[in-house]
């Protein structure tokens, strides 16, 4: 058998349902308007987790050479770090 990099339909379906649930949770947190560091942290973690599912499972980079995982996940870490820095700068003015 060749290396099956795209996983099983069952796994894809479960991940899709979890992604939709996480999106609804993001909406709920936004609608509740509970501004605060903890809320922002939860939003960032949810978004980061969703992105990593897209990268590792949907883009199938879980089975790619390490360099490609490092570049894409590293991009996401860097982007969120910059957003966090700007957020921190905004509230500590």
């Amino acid at each position, binding site marked *: 058998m060749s290396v099956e990099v795209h996983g099983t339909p069952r796994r894809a379906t479960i991940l899709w349902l979890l992604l939709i649930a996480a999106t609804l949770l993001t909406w709920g947190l936004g609608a509740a308007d509970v501004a605060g560091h903890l809320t922002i942290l939860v939003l960032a973690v949810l978004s980061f987790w969703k992105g990593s599912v897209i990268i590792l499972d949907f883009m199938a980079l879980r089975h790619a050479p390490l360099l490609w995982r490092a570049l894409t996940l590293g991009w996401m870490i860097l982007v969120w770090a910059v*957003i966090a820095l700007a957020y921190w700068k905004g*509230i500590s003015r």
Partner: protein
Amino acid sequence: MENARNTAAPGPRLAGDLAIWFFILAELLAFGVFFAAYAFTRAKNLELFNAEQQALNRGAGVLNTMLLLTASYFVVRAVQAAERAASAQSARWLLAAICCGLGFISVKLTEYSAAFAHGVSLSSSPFHMFYLSLTFFHFMHVILGLVILLALWNGARKGRYHPGEMNGIETGAAYWHMVDLVWLILFPLVYVIN
């Protein structure tokens, strides 16, 4: 060829053409710079950004997030079907993904027309400038993604993708997932965090 692939020792494999991955990295960098510019401009104009963000249609943003995630899921199913040499199934999943993409376009156009009716323009405020340019830049990527999905759908209908020839469908799928990935940061950043 098929034999060589099947007997090859399992090892890391990058799904899709190497060129698309360089292209994806370039796109991610461009969006990254855009996100950083938004975040730091917001930090200097907190009150304005928070007030104008409240006027955005967050429900439309959530609906669009779900449409993109679902389209990505359908694309994964299409790739998996091609891996099983089930071309007709693969084409059906791709068509479903295209419908979700068209749904995204419709929601976004409705959102834009409502915003324009309220006097939102590139020059009406720093927030509006970012909101319009960031989301429109992404919107153009969705349109290109749809063109790619249409080409894949056409190929799948002709039975072009099978375990011996996955490169085309994997390359197109990677681009579509990139469009989804970028939205997953754009949506909380522009629509939710305040």
